[in-house]
């Protein structure tokens, strides 16, 4: 199959996957909020591909071909499904429960008319969620590569074997980038009604499904790797290099996440380069930083941080827009007038902190650009882990994987928790 056909097939496959992830995740949204629920929704999204494939090795090794591709698709879909639930939690429908009931009282109409009414009334958030799900599945490289599944991203990578001229690189990605752009433009074209909605009465249902997905995508892989790591944690203490790599990755993500958040302010165009994907963008920047004057930058982490920022920019753009549309401005103004840290946290900072945390994790787990652009002496931790993973599972490697996954999550939880505590001690 040639590249163009593969792109077309992947677009179709990812549309189905995004639709399935949406169909599973969206009904799970809007439930009663709790720490357990939030953790279960976020965990699958942030589970590194390497850890999933590492833990799933016994299964993936047994199957090949279409079975493996199907397994990959199901895992990717389940990994991303909680995103739809989170989107629905964070951005409730502008159609109030009462308005929906009023629609049900309408004189009997065909199912199609009712469905069309529901689609229009739901506003842009479900579409934005679908679009993000599509973009994330369509651009997945790491999990596809680890599962040895043929996708356009893997083909693009293979096309660079032995080197590829940047102009050929760009020509090759023209079609996938156009598809991504089309998805984004399609979102912007319709005249959407107000996106803001009230959080309606929480429905308790769905928690067991959410927990099931979290167990499958995060719990089982973590438990399996933790089991393998049982004897590895002791040796981890002496792995200074690993600790240094971990700090490097944390530092780069800590720079990229707030950086992109500031950069996105009113600059939607910044989101576009990220659509090129990590490989092409990193190779272009790599060529750029060889130019004599710019060359000074290549021994700094700045090119890598810049590329990480660009790569997470499309997600940052979507998050920023959604948060902007859903911030209760009057209430926030009153909170500011009252000088209430607690209210300001609840109304404005908590969603922002959540978005920044998500961007931080995305930058932290990014692999391709990090491998290509990290300055010498700074090895991102997942680059090292990928290297070590070549020889398969071992106790130390398992311990490293667990640590590399949980340390940033724990740090984030502590940071956000401390900020929340500070904000809530509003006496």
């Amino acid at each position: 199959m040639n590249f163009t056909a593969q792109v077309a097939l992947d677009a179709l496959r990812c549309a189905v996957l995004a639709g399935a992830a949406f169909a599973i995740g969206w009904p799970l949204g809007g439930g009663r909020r709790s720490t357990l629920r939030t953790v279960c929704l976020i965990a699958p999204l942030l589970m590194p591909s390497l850890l999933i494939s590492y833990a799933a090795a016994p299964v993936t090794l047994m199957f090949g071909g279409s079975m493996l591709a199907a397994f990959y698709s199901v895992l990717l879909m389940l990994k991303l499904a909680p995103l739809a639930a989170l989107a629905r939690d964070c951005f409730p429908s502008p159609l109030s429960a009462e308005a929906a009931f009023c629609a049900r009282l309408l004189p009997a109409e065909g199912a199609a008319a009712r469905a069309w009414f529901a689609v229009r009334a739901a506003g842009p958030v479900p579409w934005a969620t679908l679009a993000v799900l599509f973009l994330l599945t369509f651009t997945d490289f790491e999990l596809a590569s680890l599962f040895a599944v043929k996708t356009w991203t893997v083909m693009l990578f293979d096309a660079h074997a032995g080197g590829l001229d940047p102009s050929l690189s760009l020509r090759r990605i023209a079609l996938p980038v156009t598809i991504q752009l089309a998805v984004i433009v399609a979102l912007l074209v319709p005249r959407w009604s107000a996106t803001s909605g009230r959080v309606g009465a929480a429905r308790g249902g769905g928690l067991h499904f959410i927990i099931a997905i979290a167990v499958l995508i995060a719990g089982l892989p973590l438990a399996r790797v933790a089991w393998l790591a049982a004897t590895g944690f002791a040796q981890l203490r002496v792995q200074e290099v690993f600790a240094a790599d971990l700090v490097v990755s944390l530092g780069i993500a800590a720079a990229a996440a707030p950086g992109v958040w500031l950069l996105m302010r009113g600059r939607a165009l910044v989101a576009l380069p990220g659509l090129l994907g990590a490989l092409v963008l990193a190779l272009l920047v790599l060529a750029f930083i060889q130019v004599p004057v710019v060359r000074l930058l290549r021994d700094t982490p700045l090119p890598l941080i810049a590329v990480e920022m660009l790569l997470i920019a499309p997600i940052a753009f979507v998050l920023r827009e959604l948060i902007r549309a859903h911030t209760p401005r009057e209430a926030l103004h009153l909170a500011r007038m009252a000088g209430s840290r607690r209210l300001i946290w609840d109304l404005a900072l908590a969603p922002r902190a959540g978005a920044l945390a998500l961007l931080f994790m995305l930058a932290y787990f990014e692999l391709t650009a990090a491998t290509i652009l990290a300055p010498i002496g700074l090895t991102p931790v997942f680059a090292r882990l990928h290297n070590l993973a070549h020889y398969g599972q071992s106790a130390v490697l398992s311990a490293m994987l667990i640590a590399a996954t949980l340390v940033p999550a724990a740090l984030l939880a502590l940071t956000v928790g401390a900020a929340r505590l500070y904000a809530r001690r509003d006496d």
Partner: protein
Amino acid sequence: MRREAEAAAFIRDRTLLLLGLVAVLFVTLWRLPALRSSVVVYCAHDAVFAEEILRDFEMRSGVKVLVRYDTEATKSLGLVELLLAEKDAPRCDVFWNNEMLGTADLAERGVLAPHRGPGWERIPEQWKDADARWTGFAARLRVHIINTRNPATDLDDLSRGAIAKPLYGTTLTHYTALWHLWGPERLKTWHHESRARGLREVNGNGMVKDIVARGARDHGFTDTDDFFDAKDRGALVAMKPVRIDGASICIPNTVALIRGAPHEATARQLIDYLLSAEAEMALAKSKSRQIPLGPVDENQLPAEVRELREWSAKCVPLAGFVKDRVECLAWLKSEYTE
């Protein structure tokens, strides 16, 4: 009023800017001491084995070594891309590749500089560039890894076999050898027929090893280091060298000095160390059981490595296959990416 100001400041973007800057500064300063290092190595060999050797060099020489490793996900593509991109102003001093033909290709592209040190002298002709732009050492063999639980395993039954994607690494070398020795047409026919017959293609040699070790496939094409990894973990596996027209495929590591290397003197020192008998012996005794190419004390060699050495006595002369690799890779890219 104070509380109001405090609350306002708390949400300003300035806080985020500060956070970002602190992180940038931290990461930059973190590596300042490292910048005072003496030699930079781009290493495509697995970190788990290379690190030990390089640390040993640091201890012996007092020279600080900075290494950039490649990953399974990005193969050696990342390092080759980097070396090509940095050709005019290199940051790297030494390239340690885990195969030979890619390095020879870089030499053809003018990325490498000659170095005729004592290490180069001790390696036999067939494993080094006549112009001393690269030198081979510590080799691995391409082997069939066989699951011994099935005594009826038939290596010709490709429907029960596995192979890594041939675009990269030693599998590409394997294909290049076939390209040269069989000719393009026969290789292409074999490639298509083997897939049609169900030869499972996976991501890397490590995965081939795992698949066979777990019994998902009866046999596969991999390298000796992967075979020994499986064996050391207690897997029921055996190996048999891959032979083309009676010759085995012996793939050395290669080391090369980068043209315009910023730390040329220490780079030469490191290359000589890597090509020394001690380093070859250390790699032979490591879990990867690599075959020394230069003269070493045979008595000190592990028995397994001695056997490998015998198998590698008659091997395919890879050094002359650079052009074949370019042609073969071009064909493979058209197969896989167009």
